[in-house]
């Protein structure tokens, strides 16, 4: 097949004059007196249940319609354990996602006019026919398994169903290998269970919360932020380990300003102190744990004095904080974090976290880790999915053996043809994830895309990834559609309904409808047996003794726990863990069997070269990755990121607050846009910090374009976790350019 090198020129749709101008937006309107005494205000005439899609905590809430029948505001559902009636700023600002006038409005197809690639508007039928034809051709030539789905969010379930029916199980989300995968594997190897989302941490009832690089409060996962606040109310001890004085650090009794990339040394030293002082929970460990002797021997040399030289945390502080944890045990949480793909030994670091929790007896105990319960909801009555003859794993023989889910980065790599690999991906369906910002090493991602025969992007917004697609499909926002029930595991099982509060704007459609229409054209109608989403939901709800009618009124339904085992290890009953030994594995036989270290070891990580600083990135409470960067309400709260620079460093470079600089990484990659400097004592002198998700390069994002800089551009290096394929991304170093670099210069 012939293929020109740049068959996927990035197309800037802004030059096409597509769609309309800004559409009147009620939230911008002056409603004739909303302000002060005696004036009329909007009133809720009707409310429709939903669960939030701005992040993936999925809080249940209500969409309120005003007198005009327009979407007005969003509030939390009082009965929902994810939010307890209080949405976070992103959830509250979710209305901006609906009203954003930059939304994708109609299907687009790549075409060539006068030798130049561009998009043209297409009908849904035309777009579906094209995609179905291409998918069938790829399946005939290479097998259906060569089609992969990248998704993040509710749409993934629908497209996943369609793709599984077509014969591919290569369904992935960057939330695994680029985020929380190592913690799932680390905890699974130790306790035979993962952490899941929402995290099963009993913060509400804990006496001691230890956060390692986890910045709850800036990371706005709602229920956790609420529970941390409850813990503060109850005078719980908070210990925060972070090179940055995070918001959480400012709420902590102990802040350990650790040298970045040395967390493992601190963890091993804490384990050493707790074992050597016999501060661990002896009865619990005797009854449940396997490998204490091996662990004891293993950590013998990891003294606080040893750790001091590596972490810069003083030995007495290490001892004192270990004692604080032991005093609180078992009501203590060494928090597993969420985004943990940092240095490539992340599964091992999370193993150390799990081991520490085990020693303190917090797993399965009040104030530690609870046992969530999910409501069982009947699966749809559809045919069995065909069994794929190959999967993404075939591209990585003998690697990442404990990966529990497909690797987004792995599928991306396996799209670039290689001599030693017979499985190269030929088509990507991308839904709700801006892979250009999400995956490390943009050049690699773009090279992979150039090798595709088909790329379909389904999104609400013209994110950068849409510019590389052959077909762009506009899905409507969560406020305009049904989706699958939210079935979440928590202290009490709940289900929540998302129902549309408005017709889809423009020519956008729900993900369910798009997936079903595609499935129909692929001859897979049996997998979507219902004509509409509400019929499917009603069928499912009736199976659990509810109905669509009831759920539309209540939004969320709580069920009694089937088992009285919220804290299954209280009172130390007989218990068999889902591990090889049936015990908590301090010494991991599963890791050993697969050829990995059964006990976590310290590995020194590369340090920044002279004049370079470690790039640390994180979250702001009002934004979710890059997906909210154009939301009118949320950009109003924060429209750009800044680079945090320690005053000593600023002095050395002559940098002042709000000065614009360009960041250049160790590979000579420079940010597309300048970023303002924030001189602050809150960051160590060997690091810089920036919020992820800014520096958008697509002009169609009128509010986000060119605002701040993208950390993702600078993440050209990764350290791959050998255990599960996670991409460690805190291994990049940057320096400052105070003058605008000339185009083309490194």
């Amino acid at each position: 097949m012939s293929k020109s090198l740049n068959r996927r020129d990035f197309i800037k749709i802004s030059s096409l004059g597509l769609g309309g101008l800004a559409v009147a937006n009620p939230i911008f309107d002056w409603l004739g007196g909303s302000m002060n005494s005696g004036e009329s205000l909007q009133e809720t005439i009707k409310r429709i249940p939903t669960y939030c899609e701005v992040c993936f905590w999925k809080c249940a809430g209500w969409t309120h319609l005003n007198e005009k029948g327009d979407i007005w505001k969003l509030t939390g559902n009082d009965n929902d354990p994810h939010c307890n009636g209080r949405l976070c700023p992103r959830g509250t600002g979710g209305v901006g996602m609906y009203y954003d006038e930059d939304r994708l409005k109609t299907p687009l197809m790549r075409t060539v006019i006068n030798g130049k690639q561009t998009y043209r508007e297409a009908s849904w039928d035309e777009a579906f026919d094209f995609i179905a034809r291409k998918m069938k051709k790829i399946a005939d030539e290479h097998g259906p398994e060569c089609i992969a789905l990248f998704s993040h969010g509710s749409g993934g379930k629908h497209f996943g169903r369609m793709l599984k029916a077509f014969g591919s199980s290569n369904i992935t989300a960057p939330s695994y290998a680029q985020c929380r995968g190592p913690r799932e594997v680390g905890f699974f190897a130790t306790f035979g269970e993962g952490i899941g989302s929402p995290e099963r941490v009993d913060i509400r009832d804990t006496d001691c919360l230890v956060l390692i690089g986890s910045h709850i409060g800036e990371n706005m996962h709602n229920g956790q932020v609420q529970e941390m606040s409850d813990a503060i109310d109850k005078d719980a001890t908070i210990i925060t380990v972070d090179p940055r004085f995070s918001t959480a650090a400012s709420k902590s009794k102990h802040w350990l300003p650790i040298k970045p990339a040395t967390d493992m040394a601190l963890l091993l030293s804490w384990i050493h102190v707790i074992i050597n002082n016999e501060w661990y929970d002896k009865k619990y460990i005797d009854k449940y744990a396997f490998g204490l002797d091996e662990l004891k021997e293993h950590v013998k040399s990891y003294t606080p004095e040893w750790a001091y030289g590596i972490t810069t945390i003083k030995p007495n502080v290490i001892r004192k904080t270990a004692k604080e944890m032991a005093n609180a045990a078992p009501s203590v949480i060494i928090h597993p974090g969420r985004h943990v793909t940092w240095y490539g030994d992340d599964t091992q670091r999370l193993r150390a976290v799990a081991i520490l929790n085990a020693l303190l007896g917090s797993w399965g105990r009040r104030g530690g880790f609870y046992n969530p319960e999910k409501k069982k909801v009947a699966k749809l009555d559809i045919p069995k999915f065909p069994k794929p003859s190959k999967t993404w794993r075939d591209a990585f023989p003998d690697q990442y053996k404990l990966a529990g889910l497909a690797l987004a980065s792995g599928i991306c790599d396996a799209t670039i043809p290689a001599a030693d690999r017979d499985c190269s991906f030929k088509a990507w369906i991308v839904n709700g994830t801006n892979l250009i910002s999400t995956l490390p090493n943009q050049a690699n991602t773009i090279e992979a895309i150039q090798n595709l025969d088909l790329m379909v992007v389904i999104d609400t917004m013209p994110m950068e990834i849409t510019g590389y697609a052959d077909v762009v499909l506009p899905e409507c926002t969560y406020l305009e559609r049904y989706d699958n029930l939210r079935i979440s595991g928590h202290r009490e099982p709940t289900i929540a309904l998302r129902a549309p509060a408005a017709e889809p704007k423009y020519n956008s459609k729900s993900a369910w409808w798009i997936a079903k229409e595609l499935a129909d054209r692929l001859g897979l109608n049996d997998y979507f047996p219902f004509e509409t989403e509400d019929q499917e939901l009603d069928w499912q709800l009736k199976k659990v003794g509810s109905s669509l009618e009831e759920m539309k009124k209540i939004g969320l339904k709580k069920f009694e726990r089937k088992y009285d085992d919220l804290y299954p290890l209280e009172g130390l009953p007989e218990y068999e863990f889902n591990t090889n030994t049936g015990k908590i594995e301090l010494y991991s036989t599963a890791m050993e069997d697969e050829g990995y270290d059964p006990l976590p070891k310290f590995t020194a990580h590369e340090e920044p070269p002279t004049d370079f600083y470690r790039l640390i990135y994180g979250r702001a409470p009002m934004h979710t990755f890059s997906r909210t960067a154009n939301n009118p309400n949320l950009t109003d709260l924060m429209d750009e990121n800044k680079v945090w620079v320690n005053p000593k460093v600023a002095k050395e470079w002559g940098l002042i607050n709000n000065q614009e600089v360009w960041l250049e990484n160790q590979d000579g990659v420079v940010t597309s846009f300048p970023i303002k400097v924030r001189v602050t004592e809150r960051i160590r002198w060997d690091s810089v910090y920036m919020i992820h998700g800014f520096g958008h390069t697509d002009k169609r994002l009128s509010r986000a374009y060119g605002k701040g800089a993208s950390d993702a551009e600078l993440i050209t290096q990764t350290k791959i976790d050998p255990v599960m394929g996670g991409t460690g991304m805190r291994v990049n170093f940057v320096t400052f350019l105070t003058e605008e670099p000339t185009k083309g210069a490194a």
Partner: protein
Amino acid sequence: MRYAMAIDTKKCVGCSDCVVACQVENNVPIGHCRDWVVEATSGTYPDLSLEIRSERCNHCTNAPCVRCCPTEASHIVDGGIVVVDHNECIGCKACIESCPYDARFIHPKGSVDKCTFCIHRVEKGENPACVSVCPTKCMYFGDTDDPNSEISKLLKKRKWKTLIPEAGTKPNIYYLT
């Protein structure tokens, strides 16, 4: 009856939910806000402290904005809530100049705008939008004239401060420290 707000700086994480909730509830135009978040860092690395405050009109008992308003558009209603009647407001900005808290702005429509303690909600027995949404539950709204109210009890139990007390405005936003 004296409505007031107490905000626990030990719990506030500065997420700005109060800001967006107010904006949506009250149709505050994008680009303006009736409440905002201030972060104040002190010390040098690693001996640092951070205070985060959600700020807004202090609904001062001795309100300079009310005293200086030439048309009585700015006035105090039951419960001590300072409001602006925008039909009376001529947009002279004297109140903006007089406010030590910089709590007022000119609405694009021409008159002065600011926090109302969500009087329309309070009248219905609800909390102001900012208080009702706050994920950390760091904000408390109530009647400081009632010794049994939650806010009165908190102000008795906890250390607190007000902003710029030296201005003599007798503010009714309290920060628990």
